[in-house]
């Protein structure tokens, strides 16, 4: 349905306003909510019922794979061409620890960056909300609550009215 908008965007001038509005929306039964803010707002996630992200898990996996790769690499190279280096042991774990540690960190960090972007669906240069005329303020000092159109309770007029009642300084419809 082409005419169906992306959602309705309500603008608030303070985080508190946004939080209040979000609570009301929840109370009113809206569930497809999103918020756009210039900086992270404490408590918003709880109200919007955002599931806990699993970036940390990816980080741990990355760490272990890094350590494993490093150890295996150093073991293999010494196994493949064993050479007596200053009478030191062939598999000198104490000496291999350094590179192992470095790769642990490296893999973990990269994994988490990728995971974060992947989950957020970034990069995403073209996104409906950008079309909203006042949206650029979302990165300055305005706080936006968005009720998405796939919400069962969504209908342009009603949702707009609801946001206005919730204290939105302005309400605008986000084209698809």
């Amino acid at each position, binding site marked *: 349905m082409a005419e169906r908008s992306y959602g309705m965007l309500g603008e608030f001038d303070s985080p508190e306003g946004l939080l209040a509005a979000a609570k009301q929306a929840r109370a009113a039964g809206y569930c497809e909510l999103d918020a756009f803010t210039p900086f992270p707002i404490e408590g918003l996630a709880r109200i919007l019922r955002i599931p806990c992200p699993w970036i940390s898990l990816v980080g741990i996996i990355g760490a272990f794979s890094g350590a494993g790769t490093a150890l295996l690499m150093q073991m293999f190279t010494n196994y493949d*061409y064993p*050479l007596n*280096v*200053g*009478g*030191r*042991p062939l598999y000198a774990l104490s000496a291999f620890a350094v590179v192992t540690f470095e790769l642990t960190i490296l893999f973990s960090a990269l994994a988490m960056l990728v995971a974060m972007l992947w989950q957020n669906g970034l990069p995403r240069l073209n996104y409906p909300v950008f079309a909203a005329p006042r949206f650029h303020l979302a990165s300055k000092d305005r706080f936006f609550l968005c009720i998405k159109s796939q919400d069962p309770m969504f209908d342009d007029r009603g949702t707009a009215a609801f946001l206005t009642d919730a204290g939105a300084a302005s309400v605008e419809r986000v084209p698809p």
Partner: protein
Amino acid sequence: MTRNVRAHRNQAAPPEGGPRQWSGIEELSDNPAFQAFVDAEYPAAQTFSPTARREFLKLMGASFALAGLTGCEKSPFVAGLPYVDQPDDVTIGVPRRYATAVVLDGYAQPVIATTYSGRPTKLDGNPDHPVTGGRSDIFMQSAVLGLYDPDRAQAPTRRGEPVSWQDVVAATGVLREEWGKDGGEGLRLLVGPITSPTLLRQLDALLKQFPKARVHLHGPAAQSPQQSLAMAAYGKRVDLHYALEQCDVIVSFDDDFLGPGLDQVRNARGWAASRHRFADRPGNRLFMAESVPSATGAMAGSRLIADASRMPALAEALANALGVSGAVAGDITGRERDWIKRAADACGNARGKSLIVAGSVGGQAGAIWAARINDALGNAGQTLRFTAPIAGPVGTGTLVELVSDISAGKVHSLVVIDCNAAYSAPGELKAAEALQRVRTSLHLGSQRDETGALCEWQLPMAHALESWSDARAVDGTATIIQPVIAPFYDVRTIHQFIAMLLGEIDPAPDAAVRQTWQATFGDTFSTQWKQALHDGFVQGAAGFVDARAVSEAVTAPPADGAVDIVFRLDPTVWDGQFANVGWLQELPKPLTTVTWSNVVAIAPDLAKRIPVANGDHVEVRIGDRSVTGPAWIMPGQAGNTVALYLGYGRTRAGRVGDGLGYDAYQVQPSDRPWLAKGSLHRVDGTETLAVTQLHHRMEGFDFVREANPGEVAKQPASEHASFYPQWSSSENAWGMVIDLDACIGCNACVAACTAENNVPIVGAEQVKVGREMHWLRIARYYAGSIEEPRSHFQPVPCMHCEDAPCEMGCPVHATTHSPEGLNQMVYNRCIGTRTCSSYCPYKVRRFNFFDYRAPADSPTQAAHNPDVTVRSRGVMEKCTYCVQRIEAAHVTADKESRPLRDGEVVTACQQACPTKAIVFGDTKDPNSEVARLKRDGRHYVLLEELGTRPRTTYLARWRDYGSGSGQG
């Protein structure tokens, strides 16, 4: 060792023999295909002048690879040149060895020459020869570089204009007619000392043809006491020969018999032989009274420091102490008296087994007293032997007489043979100017040197390694010198030249020599000749004669206030003839570690008085002549003695040797060439000397250890504790032991290492910033006070540590450990992080900070050992225990499926060492020499506390009897 019996036919252009393939290359050099190949292999060749190019092409053997270092680029296709016909006895890539000799001051230095595809690359002593016994000195080791000297005279010239030998023959023809008219009146020959039977024979023939002609002898070394002082001491011309191997006690009055020179190898071998007869005590005692520190002084258990002019008095005092008639103990200081007492006691108990020697500075008085003491002790004929003079010619004039004759206009033709009088004549003679006044002068010499440049004709002389000739060693044993390479310049041998003077048109290179020995050998000529060429010498040294010391009692001239000026031949460039040999220029002088220059050595307290520091310019004035050079404060030098070193300040030595140091000949008096009186004062100017060791005190550490006679016990094999599991070792475990009591610091090992391992020469400027490349350095330490120090020599090669810190530091596996215990250095894997050198506690690694390789067009390329990679810029290098020799020995043994034998692998340094101070071998074999020494009581490990477990270890020095644990 394969000796080529047929080699004597080589130059007579026979089909086979090493040198044959040379001429093959010569023919090649104009062949377009070959030139294309050369241009591909050595692009630099394209830039040469035609002549330079031709020489170069001759030099580059077809199988000669310029070993560079490249990474993994696309592997190229290069040209390969087979023989046209391969000699039956040539195996490509396998070195061939010939017995021959090189010549130093007219005396033969018997050598085995190693050649690769006809290029001699290494000379070592002839092991069968009675004098060297396979050992060598720096001059012998470096002689091969003289062959490839890019500044050699390459074609005859007349007044600097190139001419042909035909012109020379024509000219001599004209001269001969002139000489023939008045029996050679006005014809003079100027020669250096000569032992060659052939040359002496030819000269006699010449003098017979021109009876009024006269031969003059000149050569700095020829004036050494062995000739002139013996006359005074024994009343007849004899040569003295020390039988040091039989000595219990040696007393030397400023005679540096272990120092550089003709007798070094023989004396060092003899001294070491008696010195190390016993395991628990030194085999002989050495008392040395000297004015200027020397190798001998460093070895002496009891060393007395006295001014040069004191020597006769001291000798007389010793004579007095030993009851020689007519000897009075003059006024001598307490210290001197004490030393003389101990020396006298020692000698008294060693009658017939002691030896008193006196050096040149002692003059006739010193020589006479020494002779009389020896007679008194019954040493003559036992430890001191006499022969008729080895060197000729007999009844010659001196340079002084020649110069005066020239000034008197009595000389119109002068023939100079291998003698650089214009440079090495005492300055007051003004020999150079005299030479120019002669109407016709011919100079035969390997270089267009100072003399050659002044003569009308300069005629290039063949190098010993490309000549047919003969000469006698210091003991009189004759060697027939055979060429190991065909001349690659337009040169002639001495004998060919004299033959021309005798009227021959185009004498064959070997004709004269054969003629001489035909006469000697008689009808068994052919067999004896082959035998002689094979052995490298003709059996039979000069017979001994009796000699009694003159019985007069000479008293020493009274000392005056002036400073004693002692003249010494330079320890590395000798009288200057080696000035253009890079290897010798970069060799550190044994006691100063100065390179590329000579110094004015002065005593510490004299330096304080003036005052001067090292490198400050001082002027030495003798009579009305003076010379200015850099000062060097020499610990242990007599307070009122100054030492000048001859051999530097050359102007026409070549690109290497010109303009280095100062010319001491300028102030050398012709009447007293070795000791003069003069003055010394500071002048403006200071220079940084290129020294390889900046600090000489041991700073309280025990790098060099000393042991008291009789106080050593066999050492139990100590087991090394380590957290690391031991690596399995293969059947050979290479190791080295260096006996510090035997090392006389002669540098032969360093020179041999340089020749064997293609060690580059970096030049004075690089040495000054500390970048010399020698794989083996002879560390020199002083213990005790600076006025009266005890000096030690300690050769430091790579220690080949079992737990090597360097290997641990390399990020690319460029240096690792071999199962045989070698610390391997892989140049082509090295990326030059230099971590290994930073971690090396012994700092034995050397780095190519720049590209130190000789330019591709330099003839010295041909001196490279093809079995050792030539290192390029940016890679680390170090002592490899001559791994190329180890691997070669392995191949030989493996092909015969047998284990290696002890002594089958000999490192270059070990091979050269005249005192057997360096012993290399398999430490796993309990019967090997090296294993035995590792159990010796004097055995110790350098910096053992670091736990690096070196394979190279040391034997402590002996202290003198009764010296207790004084210095150390």
